[in-house]
């Protein structure tokens, strides 16, 4: 099931940290159906098979990207694509510094959606969709859908109880799920392509209001599983973002459609 992305293999070796080969593996996520966190009780989301990075994109990976693409260096990026916090933990345009973790192997954070998207395109891939990400994140070490397991949920929630200061752990830390993907939980939040499909400002005069209940009445009416608090936290996080926001605990990984064969 594990595939190596061709896009990764042809990349240059500009990284100051040498080749971070671990971060270039991808795994296939066989498609399936799941009930989304909110919506009607019988709503189902079907996810087609796709391929997902095994690890979040690291600072070392990102350094290669900005080295090749000066436009995405922190001093060069137009404000509309990234706010003032963009790569703020880096010392300079091409110097990730100590907060990027040993050999730059911490997940890159403080990156906007535009930046994450540009990176994935450059590497011959794309951001995963929200549905794809949520589908893959239901998996524990042993089974594809562990969301019903109290222990699994509690483990995810426990991450929120442990404040994380830079440098963040290495992307290879954490459990490997049944697909071979590491760090979907317990490392950083991750951008998805359609993060702004979550309408949660709760202001009915602004929104069509379909998901208001998630915002204020809070985590009960209309949601598929009101006790899946971890999912609520993820959706709230997405709802709070704008595309140019760079946040200290928010990184990303890339995905691809399954190759034709």
């Amino acid at each position, binding site marked *: 099931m594990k595939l190596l992305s061709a896009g990764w293999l042809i990349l240059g070796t500009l990284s100051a940290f040498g080749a971070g080969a671990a971060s270039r593996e991808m795994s296939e996520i066989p498609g399936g159906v799941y009930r989304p966190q909110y919506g009607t009780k019988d709503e189902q989301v079907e996810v087609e098979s796709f391929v997902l990075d095994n690890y979040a994109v690291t600072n070392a990976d990102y350094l290669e990207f900005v080295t090749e693409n000066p436009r995405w260096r922190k001093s060069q990026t137009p404000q509309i694509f990234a706010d003032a916090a963009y790569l703020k933990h880096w010392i300079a345009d091409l110097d990730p510094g100590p907060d990027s973790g040993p050999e730059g192997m911490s997940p890159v954070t403080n990156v906007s959606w535009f930046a994450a998207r540009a990176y994935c395109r450059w590497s011959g891939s794309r951001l995963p969709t929200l549905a794809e990400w949520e589908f893959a994140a239901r998996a524990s070490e042993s089974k594809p859908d562990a969301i019903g397991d109290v222990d699994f949920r509690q483990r995810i929630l426990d991450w929120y109880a442990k404040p994380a200061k830079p440098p963040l752990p290495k992307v290879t830390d954490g459990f490997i799920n049944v697909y071979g993907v590491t760090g979907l939980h317990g490392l950083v939040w991750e951008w998805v392509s359609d993060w702004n499909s979550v309408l949660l400002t709760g202001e009915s005069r602004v929104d069509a209001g379909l998901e208001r209940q*998630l915002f204020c009445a809070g985590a009960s009416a209309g949601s598929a599983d009101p006790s899946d608090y971890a999912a609520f936290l993820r959706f709230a996080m997405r709802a709070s973002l704008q595309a140019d926001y760079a946040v200290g605990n928010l990184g990303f990984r890339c995905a691809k459609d399954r190759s034709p064969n």
Partner: protein
Amino acid sequence: MRVSILITIAWLFLATMLPATHVSHAAEVKGEEHAVLTAAPSVPPLITRKHSTKVIVELEVRERVGTIAEGVEYTFWTFGGTVPGRFIRVREGDQVEFHLKNHPDNKVPHNIDLHAVTGPGGGATSSFTPPGHESIFSFAALNPGLYVYHCATAPVGMHIANGMYGLILVDSKKGLPKVDREYYVMQGDFYTVGSNGDTGLQTFSMEKALREDAEYVVFNGSVGALTGDHALQAEVGETVRLYVGNGGPNLVSSFHVIGEIFDEVRIEAGDAINRNVQTTLVPAGGAAIVDFKVDVPGTFILVDHSIFRAFNKGALGMLKVTGKPNTAVYSGQQDQRIYLPEGGAVQTTPEPAPKPKLAANKAERIEMGRGAYQTNCVACHQADGQGIAGAFPPLAKSDYLNADVNRAIDTVLSGLQGEITVNGEPYNNVMPSLGLSDEKIANILTYVLNSWDNDGGEVSPAQVSKRRKK
């Protein structure tokens, strides 16, 4: 640029939402000032100005590890670094410009719903902020009163359960009657994966929160936040006002001060005044203002009179009043009327789940005993072991205690009633059986024996077990 848009939205929102009469208030607003924010139990200074002004409030959300009970840590989500959040004080008619900052090291987005705000979401819709960002919105303080504020980001229950609540006081134009002391007391219930007393960093248990099965119910964010050296202070003859809030998330408080009667209660912190009140309800997400004059010295115990919460889960605080006794009000010689609901009968409490760790040596036993003492004994015998004169005998340098260790074990095992003499003073009261494990009793007694000039020694669980079988 985004900030300026936000402000515009907020103003737009005001313009469209407020009735014309209220908009006219805005015209009277003169000057501007930064709000003084205080951590509990302090209250910001009285507002003396007689006009409305623009008040700028800057509140920072921090997610940080703190102590919820002796040896027990918890990751609190806070408005201003403390639980409860900073006390905000404004005046009726003020225009409040609110800055909500979400610290960059935080993990999750937050917002604020102030019950003092007239408008959808109470400000929540205008203040939804991811880590490393700041939101600004404005509102008019239309209605005087004491209001709860809290985070309303999904999952709302979890944000509140982690400590995201506080109080905002909107002083009426006339102002409340002047008092000598003002304090900020706010109750909250907490849901930890570990049982009450389990040490180390505890995480939030959504299972218990859903069942409303709190491990801790506390005033001002932790067990002991208002006891011992942290007790509230007053002097005989002074008037005391408590701004009492309840953040919940689940439990309603039956707020009571043992040994005092509230002269005036502003019920639910509204305009209605009730007089001569013993216990007042403070709903989750609500508040009350209680005023009383302290006539005699002593330690007055603040409790949630759902009493297991007070004596077993932490909802207990103290007001220490110093000054001359007034025997006309209280003789000090008669039977105590301290509240012990079950009278002389022996009570048992369910044995908590076995502690994961047992004391390996005397030093550990003393240390663990210190924690257990804080949870089980301190309410009556006090942190310094001095007890309360006339009511609860001292353990410090106690002849009664040191004379007979087995008698001490029996007392903790089975409780005690009837008159005894300790250090020359008679005591006639009731001590319940606390239903503690052999290990815990051994730890507590070893701690007590090795504290406050007592004779030392060690009590083992085996010794306790032997006495239990007798």
